């Protein structure tokens, strides 16, 4: 039928347009950088850009995990609390035993995060609790645990050993360690999502959960896995956070979960599940970091941060939906009952 053929051809064009979301984002980021640079040339220096990269790296690492979860039609609102709790616990341990080898510290953080993420996973898979409720609950519970643990106190820079403080900011080939770690993690996630069975199962699960089950994909295990991964990543990020800011406080990363969802959504991860790319999420994180730093550098009040972020999410979501709806209308003539 003529409209059918048209549908497929337009599908080609739309597919190309969708892929160009990363291009659009990339262009937007460049334009922003240039615009900020014009206003304050100090922004275009490598030093100042390192700050942007550090922010982006921290955000990207968790946004990737969050993105994976959103692909499975879930969400994890507890990421900031997991980060804060692991940061605090690791900082305490380092304070008590400053000679601990760095690698052990990192592993400890990752392990702690894994435990927290597993609890999320158990509540969601075995308990059958919807992810938004489950992680809303653990968001409060884990943040409460930070208070319980630290008694409201905090660890400051003097109580932390030098090598720990250098973990995130120390440089390797001119780039801060954290940025290098983030790149490595991004590559790992890319390979995982695109070239491993588990990764492809994640997409299948998000795209059509019933069909995935029929196809023999172990949906419970996959779901559990993505929350554990997120926990592991948040644990790692917690160590990095404490290292980067040289402190661990009870309000560490308060409100950070929103940014991770924002980075993912802006980066093209659909809240309906089943789609999203690593480069997209990275660009989303970079965009947010550029905005954050750009606003500060331009002398625009930092109070605009949040408003701009929220506006961008709305923009991304609105444009996505009109986009997807047009695509769907063109291609699907009728949905089988």
């Amino acid at each position, binding site marked *: *039928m003529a*409209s*059918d053929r*048209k*549908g*497929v051809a337009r*599908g*080609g064009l*739309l*597919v190309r347009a969708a892929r160009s979301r990363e291009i659009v984002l990339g262009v937007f980021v460049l334009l922003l950088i240039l615009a900020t640079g014009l206003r304050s040339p100090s922004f275009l220096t490598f030093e100042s850009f390192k700050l942007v990269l550090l922010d982006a790296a921290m955000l990207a690492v968790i946004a990737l995990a969050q993105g994976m979860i959103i692909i499975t039609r879930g969400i994890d609102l507890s990421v900031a609390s997991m980060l804060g709790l692991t940061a605090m616990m690791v900082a305490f341990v380092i304070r008590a035993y400053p000679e601990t080898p760095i690698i052990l510290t990192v592993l400890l953080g990752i392990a702690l995060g894994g435990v927290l993420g597993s609890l999320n996973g158990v509540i969601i898979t075995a308990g059958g609790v919807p992810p938004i409720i489950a992680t809303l609950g653990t968001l409060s519970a884990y943040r409460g645990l930070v208070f319980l643990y630290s008694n409201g106190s905090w660890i400051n820079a003097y109580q932390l050993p030098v090598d720990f403080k250098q973990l995130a900011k120390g440089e390797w080939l001119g780039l801060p360690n954290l940025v290098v770690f983030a790149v490595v993690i991004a590559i790992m996630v890319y*390979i995982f999502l*695109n*070239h*491993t*069975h588990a990764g*492809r*199962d994640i*997409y*299948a699960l*998000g*795209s*059509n959960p*019933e*069909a*995935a089950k*029929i*196809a*023999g*994909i172990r949906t419970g295990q996959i779901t559990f896995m993505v929350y554990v991964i997120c926990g592991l990543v948040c644990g790692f990020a917690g160590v990095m956070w404490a290292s980067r800011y040289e402190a661990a406080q009870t309000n560490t990363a308060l409100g950070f979960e929103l940014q991770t969802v924002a980075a993912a959504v802006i980066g093209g991860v659909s809240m309906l599940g*089943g*789609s999203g790319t690593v480069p997209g999420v990275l660009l989303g994180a970079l965009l947010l970091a550029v905005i954050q730093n750009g606003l500060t550098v331009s002398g625009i009040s930092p109070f605009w941060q949040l408003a701009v972020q929220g506006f961008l999410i709305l923009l991304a979501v609105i444009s996505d939906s009109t986009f997807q709806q047009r*695509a*769907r209308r063109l*291609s*699907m*003539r*009728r949905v*089988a*009952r």
Partner: protein
Amino acid sequence: MSGPILQMTNITKSFAGVHALRGVQFDLCPGEVHAVLGENGAGKSTLVKIITGVHQPDGGEMSLNGQRIQLAGPREAAELGISAIYQELSIFPDLDVAENIYAGRRPTLPGGLVDWRQMHREAGRLLQALSVNLDTRAKARYLSIAQQQTVEIARALSVNARILIMDEPTSALTLSEVHDLFQIVRRLRDNGTAVLFISHRIEELFEIADRVTVLRDGAYVGTRLVAEARQDELIRMMVGRTIDDLFPKQQVAAGDLVLRVRDLSRRGVFEGVSFDLHKGEILGMAGLIGAGRTEVSQALFGIAPADGGAIEIAGRPVQITSPRQAMECGLALVPEDRQHHGLVLPMTITDNITLPILARFARQGWLSGQGAHLAAFDAATRLEVKAVSVWQRVRELSGGNQQKVVLAKWLATAPRILILDEPTRGIDIGTKAAVHSLMSELAAQGIAILMISSELPEVLGMSDRILVMHEGRVTGTFDRGEATQERIMMAATQAAPMEQADGL
């Protein structure tokens, strides 16, 4: 044909005390297309679910290749080479064609990673074997229904299915797509696959099937060779009655013109649709599924408004852009999909029946409970809904009673134009007859009825005039006297509009 690959004897299955299958026998031979014919509720889908391992029979035996088997679940059935393609496609819209075919069974590289190249290569081969031209990298979301179906068939092939079950595969296809599908099915058959084909369209069975088995009310009626079978015999087997018994003729003098549709169109869906409807008249809309009839009804009711053409109600031109507007013009629509569009299943009969007219029982917003229940009670009793009380939740009712609730709901809005989309689909014989006599009554009361139906006997038996659509266009109009099944079928499969019969 060699001996049967699948044999089922004396199969019995009940759900909550209701028999879905009683002593059914069925056999399937390799290299044949065996159709299963029966009305909704006859037990076809239960039979299929037993073959695919979703349900286990309460009694009877099933053997595969002569060996008795008991399927614990769908995975075991799949391992034995039994595959099914249902109406609700199991497609992953965000994955590409190759991954759709190999979901859960992707080829692996020596290192443990996914072997994309191999997957695309194999997928390409499969599609070629089906003589289908599809880019394996295309995302399934952008394929047409027919193409998605092909992907599912390819998937079944990739697991070396020896038994392929196709459940109503043609419901969403255009004629040329059905033609292509049948080519594929023939190829599968010639390769030795056993195909179990479920359809309610008798015409198709004559085209594609080798044998046909008829079920009625969960019982086995008989099996015939398609070459030797006759359509009216099959209908009689399906229904247990001749056509005439089923559809009470009603002669009503058509009254004033109440609805005039001119050149109605929606881009890409239908165009140039024109017809008149008079008080007391039943206009039957016939055609294959995909012809655009439901879309026309949705345009008339404001669910998916048309973008061209004119609608006049009782002589006044109207623009219908929402269901509320349509209702204000006196229209009512009993939708095709009862469960998703017609009813709110978890809610009570009262809630469902009074939903469109709730404002009537509210004084200053305050809802008077009794008023609503009384009205619902009246409506439900008049239609003889079989339920314990108006407080019962609609999901507990049988299909026929659910349809009665939907009808009661719309009748309570006192429409002057009633659109019925497949009004007797999926309901038992008794309720079917009740619905038909209700339609006659309503017509006699002066209500104009537009009836969309895919059952030719129903269209022929109930309509005063018949409108036939094909691929979005009106291709034929007939008066009751001059309509025959052949003429309707010809118009329904025609590409060019026929000469309009007089009296548009």
